[in-house]
């Protein structure tokens, strides 16, 4: 069924004539609004800029990443840190290469002593 301009005009007139009217506001509505505004003002978090809360979305991950980077950067994890090297050396004792090195030196000195005795 088509809805022509004649029906449209009749409906518009009907709506205009019988436009619903809202019930009256309760007494003291404005005072209630003022009280609500005062309460709203006293809550500091409601006065924070509206841009702050969306910025938390990126502030939290970026801040966390920055803190973690700082911790790793300053923590003594590097193998080139002399203090770490020293601590490791104390904990683990001499390296096998050092032991071998000592043995090699012993053999060399023994060989030298033998050759000196031979000459004598």
């Amino acid at each position: 069924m088509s809805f022509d301009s004649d029906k449209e005009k009749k409906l518009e007139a009907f709506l205009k004539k019988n436009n619903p009217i809202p019930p009256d506001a309760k007494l003291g509505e404005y005072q209630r609004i003022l009280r609500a505004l005062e309460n709203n003002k006293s809550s500091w978090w409601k006065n924070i800029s509206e841009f702050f809360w969306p910025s938390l979305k990126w502030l939290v991950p970026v801040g966390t990443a920055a803190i973690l980077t700082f911790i790793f950067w300053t923590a003594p994890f590097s193998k080139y840190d002399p203090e770490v090297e020293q601590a490791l050396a104390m904990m683990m004792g001499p390296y096998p290469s050092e032991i071998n090195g000592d043995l090699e030196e012993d053999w060399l000195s023994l060989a030298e002593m033998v050759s000196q005795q031979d000459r004598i």
Partner: protein
Amino acid sequence: MEKQGHQINNLIEQISGGNLKNFSELYETHALLVRSVIYKLCHPQNLDDLVQEVFIKIWNGLPKFRMGSKLKTWIYRIAYNSAVDALRKKKVVFQELDETTGKVEHRQDWFYRTLILKGLNQLTEEHRSVLVLCCLEELTVEEVAEIIHVPVGTVKSRVHHAKANLYEILKKEGVSL
């Protein structure tokens, strides 16, 4: 017109500075408008709460209000958004229609107004919005487009379909138009 704009500008500046006295002026001028649009859009039991919510939003939003748009349109937009939000969050409890609702002089008037509200409730949210704003609040199509953020052509099309639907609903209810 320019003088009126200047007055509104002054009013907004004073309210933004925390002047509650001037805010009462704004409230008195626009309270009925806000009340009316919320009542017709969602017909809630908690109408007073929603009106209060809208005025708090107006108070908080005024410092950011741009004079590029009309104050009335801006207030309509806040009221419309609050009503739609309340509907979507199901914060609205529909008020039972009774004879004590509204200022009614005649029983027939009350009957027809009730039918219109019932008819509006049967429409989709999109159709109801444009019908309330265009036909009942008598805003221009351009103003409605600005309020609900859709193109003018879309508003025109929705108004046409909304009217056709409401016409059918009213006819089924026995209203002879």
